């Protein structure tokens, strides 16, 4: 059984937020009205968070693309009173929109703040609903939603694999939308349990770190710290 994980090379990220939009388009995330947007209620399953470091002139801003960490020990799953969020054998943490009661306990329990709530019925000004991805459900108001690692793509990839009598989804056959759209190729996706996969290779890099590891959540999104600048002499 695969254990899906993502590696994000912060050294390559240009903070273009292509991943953010790719995710929204792929997953039928409604765009907010200006009023709601200004209230900070945008839903973006992956967002780019700036981390300014140091002051002028030694300032640096690090940009962190922040999807759901798909923790191996997700704090959100234990607190859900109705089992509407769960982690499956492949380590994907998901939200069952049809069961969620909207108590938002998971959103408060998540130390990464990557779970989102539908404050209103999603708005699709006519005819924007034409672009709905039929593979992804449209969430009703009042439920929590989150990054699914584009799970529907795995469902499709697996359907293909089954149809072709393959036991497993081939590497590269299943890629979330954010990873696919990344211009500088700063994002990698694959099976962390496969010792030969690119992600498991990168996850062992000395630059690799996980966010808020000290909380014991064991995230499956692994970041690669910024690389060292090349030596001064050629």
């Amino acid at each position: 059984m695969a254990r899906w994980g993502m590696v994000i090379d912060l050294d390559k990220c240009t903070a273009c937020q292509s991943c953010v939009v790719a995710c929204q388009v792929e997953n039928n995330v409604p765009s907010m009205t200006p009023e709601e947007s200004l209230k900070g209620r945008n839903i973006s399953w992956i967002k780019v968070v700036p981390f300014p470091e140091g002051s002028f002139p030694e300032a640096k801003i690090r940009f962190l693309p922040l999807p759901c960490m798909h923790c191996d020990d997700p704090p959100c799953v234990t607190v859900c009173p109705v089992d509407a969020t769960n982690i499956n054998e492949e380590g994907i943490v998901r939200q069952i929109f049809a069961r969620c009661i909207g108590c938002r306990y998971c959103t408060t329990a998540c130390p990464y703040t990557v779970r989102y709530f539908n404050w209103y019925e999603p708005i699709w000004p006519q005819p924007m609903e034409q672009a709905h991805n039929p593979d992804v459900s449209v969430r009703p108001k009042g439920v929590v939603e989150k990054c699914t690692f584009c799970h529907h793509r795995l469902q499709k990839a697996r359907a293909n694999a089954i149809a072709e009598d393959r036991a497993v989804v081939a590497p590269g056959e299943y890629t979330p939308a954010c990873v696919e759209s990344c211009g500088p190729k700063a994002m990698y996706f694959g099976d962390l349990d496969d010792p030969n996969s690119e992600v498991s290779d990168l996850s062992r890099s000395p630059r690799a770190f996980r966010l808020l590891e000290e909380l014991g959540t064991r995230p499956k999104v692994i970041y690669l710290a910024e690389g060292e600048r090349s030596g001064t002499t050629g």
Partner: protein
Amino acid sequence: MADTVQQESQEENAGHRNRLLAGKAFVAAFLLALIWPFTPSIEQPIQYNHQKHIAAGLECSNCHTLYENSAWAGLPTADACAACHAEPVTDSSEEAKLVQMLSEGKPLEWKQVNRVPNHVYFSHKTHAVAGEIECATCHGKMDERTAPPPAPFFEWSMDNCINCHEDRNASVDCNACHR
């Protein structure tokens, strides 16, 4: 305390019983009212005869073109019908209706009978091709139908899905179907 209850007057008891009966009637009515209207019958634009077409040698995939290679089965387009019915082949009144529609260039708007909820990912390909499940398992014997089904043959509830998945050792992971 039961002693005391027994000491209640007869009249009181009768009134109590009446109220109880009324309550029961109310509950029954409530129940009926809730169940009754929820099996709407679906009207199709053409009273398509599956039996006749299948007997004539058509395969499911001739009209439901997508079911073998995508999540969706696909509904026949006007073009698909026009391939044979540009001119009337029989003297059926339904066919006449179809030919009329085709000649006017009206789109053929079939109504979807079987519909899984919005939050479910269901793949025809996985079920029909990889899982080798007969169409009839979910759709009933369409080769015997002379008119379009007014309601789904299979009740699309999670329990029914899970029962079948368990019987066939298919995945019952929430994520396998919920989208």
